[in-house]
C-alpha cells in the first residue's frame, strides 16, 4: 500500500459529473471504488469512470465476498472481479472480516463472525483462495458488529491472529472501532494500540448515528464524520504512516460537501506527516 500516497475518497456515481481534471477542480489523491457498484456499470457512466481511472489512482473495496462464509466465493464473481481489477490496473483490494451470504444466499449486510480459532482457519483459507485467484495480497477490514455470541477470543486477538495466519493486511476502519467501542463499552484507543499496526494498509473513516430504538450507534456511512472519530484518526495517524480515506454510501451529498470533509481529513493527515 506504500505506493498509495495522501488521502482518498469513496467514488460514487453521484459525483461523476462534478469531477474535472483542470488545476482548479477538486480531486482527491486517490479514489476508492466498490467493484460491485462498477463491474456492471452502464455505458452512460463508463466513459467518465475510465477518464477518472486514467487521471487518479484507484483502490478497490469489496462488500460481497463473504470471507467468513461456509462456502468459498463463487468463481464466476471472482473472474468478473479480477477482470475489473486488471482492466483498471487496481493493485489494492480489500474486503471485510464478516460474512454477507450463507449457503450462497445473500444478506446484503455485513454480519458478525464468531470470534473463534475455527473461524480464523476458515477465513484464512478463504482469503488465500481469493488471493490466489486475484493474484493480489488483499486487506481485510475490522467490521462493526452489534451482536457477538459464542466468541472465544477477544476482537483484537482474533484480528491479529487472522492477519498472522492469512498473511492479509489490515484495512483499519477507525469509525468502526469507535462505534464498537461505544456499543460494547471498551476503550477505542487501547483497542487500536492492541492491534498489529505494522500490518495496516490504509485507514477508513465514515459517519455514524445513534439509533434511539435500539440505543446503539449504527455505522451508516450516511452522515459526516464526527469529532470523536476525527480524534481517533489523528491518534492512529500519530502511530502509523498510512493513508486515510472517507467512505460515504448513504445520503450522498454533492462532491463539494465531501471536499470540505476531505480537506478536514487532509489537515489531520498533513499535521501527522510533518511530525513523521
Amino acid at each position: 500500500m506504500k505506493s498509495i500516497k495522501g488521502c482518498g475518497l469513496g467514488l460514487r456515481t453521484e459525483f461523476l459529473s462534478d469531477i474535472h481534471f483542470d488545476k482548479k477542480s477538486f480531486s482527491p489523491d486517490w479514489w476508492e471504488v466498490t467493484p460491485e457498484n462498477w463491474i456492471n456499470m452502464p455505458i452512460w457512466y463508463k466513459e467518465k469512470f475510465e477518464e477518472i481511472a486514467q487521471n487518479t489512482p484507484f483502490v478497490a473495496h469489496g462488500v460481497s465476498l463473504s470471507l467468513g462464509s461456509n462456502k468459498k466465493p463463487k468463481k464466476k464473481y471472482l473472474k468478473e472481479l479480477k477482470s475489473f481489477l486488471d482492466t483498471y490496473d487496481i493493485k489494492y483490494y480489500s474486503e471485510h472480516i464478516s460474512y454477507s451470504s450463507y449457503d450462497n444466499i445473500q444478506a446484503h449486510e455485513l454480519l458478525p463472525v464468531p470470534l473463534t480459532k475455527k473461524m480464523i482457519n476458515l477465513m484464512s483459507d478463504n482469503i488465500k483462495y481469493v488471493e490466489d485467484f486475484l493474484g493480489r495480497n488483499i486487506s481485510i477490514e475490522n467490521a462493526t458488529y452489534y451482536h457477538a455470541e459464542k466468541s472465544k477470543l477477544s476482537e483484537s486477538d482474533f484480528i491479529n491472529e487472522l492477519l498472522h495466519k492469512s498473511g492479509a493486511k489490515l484495512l483499519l476502519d477507525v469509525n468502526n472501532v469507535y462505534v464498537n467501542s461505544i456499543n460494547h463499552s471498551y476503550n477505542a484507543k487501547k483497542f487500536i494500540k492492541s492491534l498489529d499496526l505494522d500490518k495496516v494498509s490504509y485507514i477508513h473513516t465514515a459517519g455514524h448515528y445513534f439509533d434511539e430504538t435500539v440505543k446503539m450507534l449504527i455505522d451508516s456511512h450516511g452522515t459526516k464524520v464526527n469529532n470523536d472519530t476525527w480524534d481517533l484518526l489523528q491518534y492512529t495517524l500519530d502511530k502509523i504512516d498510512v493513508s486515510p480515506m472517507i467512505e460515504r454510501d448513504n445520503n450522498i451529498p454533492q462532491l463539494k460537501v465531501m471536499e470540505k470533509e476531505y480537506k478536514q481529513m487532509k489537515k489531520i493527515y498533513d499535521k501527522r506527516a510533518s511530525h513523521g
Partner: protein
Amino acid sequence: MIKEQVMDERKIQKSFIDQIKGKKKVKKKSIGVYKYLVHHSFFDVLIHAYPEFYKIIQDQKLEIEFDKSIYKFMQTKAISPYIWQMPNEYRKFLKKSKFFKNLKYLSDLLHFEYSELFIFMQKEVRQKSHTFKMTKNYKISKQITLYKYNYDVINKIFDKKEEICLLGYFDTTLNEVAYRPLNTLLYSFLKFIDKNQSLKVNLRLFLKKKKISYKDYAKEFEKALKELFHQKVLV
C-alpha cells in the same frame, strides 16, 4: 477437512441467519438490530425499483404481506452479489409465489418497472453501421425491452384489461429511458425478425404470412424501421 473444522461455527451462523431472515424467532435484541438492518437493505432497494408497486402496497394496506414476501425472498432467492440485480430476483420470486395473488396485473407492473432499470444498466450499444438499408440484416438489440402487456402500464390503469405493446429503450437525446407504444403489426414484425435474413426478406415473409399486401405496407414499415434503427433498437 474444512467441513469438520467449522461445524460448530456453521451452526452458530445458521441459527443467526435464520433469526435475521425471519425463519426463527429473534432471541436477543442485538440480533434484532441485524434483522432490522437486513430487512431495511432489501426493503429500500425494492421500493426504489418498484415505486408504483409500493404505492399500491400502501394504498391497499398490504404492508404486512409485502414484509412477509421480503422475508421469504431473503431466505431463498437472493443470490446475486450485485444489489442492483436483486429487484429482478424478487420479481421472479413473486411470479412463482403465492403472494399478492389478488393483484392480477402484478406481473405486468413489475416487468414494466424493472425494465427501466434493465435498460438503464446496459453496458454498451453496438451498431454495425450508420446507414439504414432494408437490404441489410439486423437483429433486435438485447438492451431494449419489447413486451406485450395485458394492462395499460404506462397510464397505470389496472382496473380493466387492455393489451398494449411497448418498446423500452434508452433515448440518447433525452439521456433517459423512454417507452414507445407500438401497433400490434409492428410489434409482431419485430418479434418475427430473423437476423440471418435481410429486413426486406423478413418483411416480405411476414406480410405474406399475415396475408397483407407488401406493396401497400412496405413504405410505412420502412419508415418505422428506419426510426427504430436510429434509436438503436435494430442493430
